[in-house]
């Protein structure tokens, strides 16, 4: 196989990963690392480097649209980015010392969690909550547009959300993913934000989190331009198309199918890692 053929194959796989990642809300990074390691035999450190770069591209591209629509909570995002960037730098440093087999196993576990989290029904909107003194002092409460007009919401349990975000950062730096599933868990489940605000604020933070670990990966020589080029372009184009289709499509069944694919990838990755083949 020549570099040209490999590049075209990588482009096609990344396009599919980005497309499905956007349709299901899981993000392209979650599929690209197993696809590169299992499908192409790429070393997992190179795969993570390429994935991180594509994660920055898709989240920044999507955030540019969401931010204008007024869903994103900028203050909360910035505050929690302290936790995610600290975690991401820590996770990226850890990645140099943890055996690649152990990274693959952790990746499998996180994949399984993401698949489970994405296949659950979305929580009901409109849970009433009390104002939280700490969140009020930091002016974190916000509002967002709904079909019935602008709705206000309160932010609660900030310390719990902050520590979960630290964990999301570590996983992002260690595995090269956006950790959107853990971020949404922190925002939506722990801090009680409306679902749409959670997903857009999570997406807003992913670029900064991934940039923090990408810096460390670049300096360690884990970002290979020949690999990252088709992966970044493919995932970016794929998620752009996915977001277009998402506007009208009924995605419930697709979400389930994709969750099954992710589960299969997770299991294969863990089996391969434990058998010493990664």
């Amino acid at each position, binding site marked *: *196989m*020549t*570099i*040209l053929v*490999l*590049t075209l194959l990588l482009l096609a796989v990344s396009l599919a990963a980005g497309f499905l990642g956007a349709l299901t809300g899981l993000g392209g990074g979650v599929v690209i690392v197993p696809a590169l390691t299992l499908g*192409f*035999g*790429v*070393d997992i450190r*190179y795969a993570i480097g390429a994935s991180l*770069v594509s994660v*920055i*591209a898709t989240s*920044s*591209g999507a*955030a*540019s*649209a969401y*931010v*204008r629509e*007024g869903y*994103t909570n*900028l*203050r909360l995002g*910035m*505050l929690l*980015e*302290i936790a995610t*960037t*600290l975690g*991401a*730098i820590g996770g*990226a440093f850890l990645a140099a010392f943890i055996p690649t087999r152990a990274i693959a196993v952790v990746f499998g576990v996180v994949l399984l969690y993401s698949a489970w989290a994405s296949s659950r029904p979305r929580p009901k909107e409109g849970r009433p909550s009390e104002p939280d003194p700490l969140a009020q002092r930091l*002016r974190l409460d916000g509002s967002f547009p709904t079909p019935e007009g602008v709705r206000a919401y309160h932010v609660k349990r900030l310390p719990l959300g902050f520590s979960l975000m630290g964990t999301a950062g570590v996983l992002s730096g260690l595995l090269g993913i956006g950790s959107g599933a853990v971020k949404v868990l922190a925002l939506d489940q722990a801090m009680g934000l409306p679902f749409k605000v959670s997903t857009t604020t999570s997406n807003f933070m992913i*670029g*900064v989190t*991934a*940039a*923090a*670990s*990408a*810096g*460390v990966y*670049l*300096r*360690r*020589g*884990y*970002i*290979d*331009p*020949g*690999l*990252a*080029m*088709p992966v*970044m*372009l493919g995932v*970016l184009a794929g998620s752009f198309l996915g977001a277009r289709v998402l506007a009208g499509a009924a995605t419930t069944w697709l979400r389930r199918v994709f969750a099954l694919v992710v589960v299969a990838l997770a299991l294969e990755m863990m089996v391969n890692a434990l058998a010493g083949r990664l």
Partner: protein
Amino acid sequence: MAQRERWWRPGRAEQAIGTLLRTGVLAAGLVVVAAGGLYLARHGSDRPELRAFHGEPQDLRSLGGIVGDAAALRARALIQLGLLLLIATPVARVALSVVVFALEGDRVYVAVTLAVLGLLLYSLLASG
């Protein structure tokens, strides 16, 4: 303060941040596409080597090395320059947020965003 608020409408920060993100991703994408074309034209028929992990050469690991090699029109360095632009996009977004919060007179969040900016610059520029 009143005069400042006349041009600094609510929602303007969101517009500026959105434009910055879009421009950064687009610029990085264009550089990577152009550099990728050059790379394939020069090395398309070579054999790839990604199974064994060597780590990238020193030149492709640091800001100075990448810019230097890119100036010499080396294809892999030019791709890396595009990727660097991409990594710089969220960093620029955080820097813009510092300005936004400063214009709003929000000192707490100027400090918060400066802390995030410091962490990002540390990860990109620190040695080791």
